[in-house]
């Protein structure tokens, strides 16, 4: 029912388009990096050393996760444009099973996320340390799961409603929540202190936070690692995220494209 060749051909098309936007992407990377440095310089001397010994590296790990999140999310915008131009009719007519089509598109987002994240991860290797092979595999798995989750959610948003303004609003809203109600900018201890219970839980189980925590554990950013987290726990949570959103995204994509 699922032919790997078909899936890889779908992905190749999305990557070809990704490549066309490479200068735009390079701009985005540069901007992210600039943000990283500015933030770090500003805050490095302001944060409590007992919580975060090095704020620059703290943020750097956060930005690495944001990178894959942002580029995996880009697939949703394109799916939205395809629907608006009725291009989707073409995809639906091709000799592919619906499952291949849906998962192909989701995995395209995954691959985009991974590609875009790679330079940031390499930067971490250079700035901090080269982790063990097992830890590198953890990083790879976590990034794959995060990218898959983001790709699926973005596709779900673009297909859940035909109202394009609504799509844009939902996309910004999701982006906002995942980005700011997370541990990217502030340490878990601070979130626990300052955020009300619901927000704390969102921040805790947010797939971006989970990935960032994993990076921080692996790159030893924390003075004392937050309790209750091990690499495998995090990967399990991320896998649940990825599975649920993948089924949701795939289901909505197919159901709402077929009229």
């Amino acid at each position, binding site marked *: 029912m699922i032919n790997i060749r078909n899936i890889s*051909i779908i992905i190749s098309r999305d990557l070809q388009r990704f490549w066309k936007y490479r200068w735009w992407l390079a701009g985005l990377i540069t901007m992210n990096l600039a943000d990283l440095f500015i933030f770090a310089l500003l805050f490095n001397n302001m944060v409590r050393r007992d919580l975060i010994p090095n704020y620059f590296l703290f943020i750097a790990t956060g930005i690495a996760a944001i990178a894959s999140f942002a580029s995996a999310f880009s697939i949703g915008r394109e799916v939205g444009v395809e629907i608006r131009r009725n291009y989707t009719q073409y995809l639906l*007519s091709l000799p592919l099973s619906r499952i291949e089509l849906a998962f192909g598109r989701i995995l395209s987002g995954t691959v985009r996320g991974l590609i875009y994240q790679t330079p940031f991860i390499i930067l971490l290797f250079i700035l901090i340390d080269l982790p063990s092979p097992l830890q590198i595999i953890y990083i790879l798995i976590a990034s794959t799961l995060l990218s898959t989750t983001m790709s699926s959610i973005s596709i779900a948003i673009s297909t859940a409603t035909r109202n394009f303004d609504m799509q844009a609003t939902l996309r910004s809203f999701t982006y906002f929540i995942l980005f700011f109600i997370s541990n990217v900018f502030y340490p878990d201890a601070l979130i626990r202190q300052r955020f009300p219970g619901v927000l704390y839980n969102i921040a805790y189980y947010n797939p971006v936070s989970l990935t960032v925590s994993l990076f921080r554990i692996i790159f030893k950013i924390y003075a004392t690692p937050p309790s209750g987290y091990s690499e495998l726990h995090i990967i399990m949570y991320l896998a649940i995220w990825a599975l649920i959103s993948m089924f949701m995204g795939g289901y909505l994509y197919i159901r709402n494209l077929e009229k």
Partner: protein
Amino acid sequence: MSSGRDVAISIRNFVKRFGDIVAVRGLNLDIYDREIFGLLGPNGSGKSTTMLTIATVYRPTEGDIYVYGKSVSRESDEVRKYVGIAFQEPKAMWIDKPIEILTWHARVIGYSMSDARRVVREVMEMLDLWEQRNKMFSELSGGTRKKVEVAKVLIQRPRVAIFDEPTAQLDVIAKHIVWKAIKELSREGSTVIVATNEMYEAEALSERIGIIYKGELKGLGTPAELKDKIPGGDIIEIHIEGSLDPLTKQMLAEKLGAYKIDHNNGLIRIYVDKGEEKITPAIEMLSNKVKIKMISMKEPSLDDVFMFFTGARLGE
């Protein structure tokens, strides 16, 4: 008739609604293996809706369509292996280039990379597209975009090839190239369906024609059969000044034994048998009621066939 031929596509009580709009209302139609079938009707008749449903892009609201025995509603994955479609509105993203669009298409329908390159080049050269291969889709003219769309199916050579208004926006030379390519495809064994709102195209291409109007099939047969189906084989056309009152129209019909009389904008069309014997009585009856400007008699053309079956002109 043509019974005994293998059926490629069987459309059964097919209804398609979009909200309140009924695009197709209860279509029953068999399309034979390896024939070129023309679906003829003005804009909004339900041609595209029917073709998109055969291609599994839409789902039937009621009824079903079978493609070589596979149901579009229940076995759409199987149906798609048989069908290739050139859409009425060319499908491509604006930043893509024709060469990329077609090479990817060739890949996704199953060619290896090297075969894809070769076949794409052949088809692009045949359609005179090769020079434009590296332009962005947004920069191409309407006709060129249409050719890229048609090229997809010519590359694919599917068992069921669907062309939705393949030559709209094409110049005469390009039209003939495309028609030739479609006929070639059929000779090689594809079943071809062509939707068109041009009578000339339907007659130039099709072995059989289905006349569709307002979502219903109004007529079906070879061009010759369709012409024969008009009961009054002959049409007397009378151009008059002023208009014809309903009573005179009715008397005229009775006196001449006409099957049907159409009257609009000063043109009376009388469908009769043995037209040559009916001209004189017609003139006698009308001359003291209206001013006759011109009178003529002709055999039906496909335009007349269309008019007879739908009561409308193409393009209306």
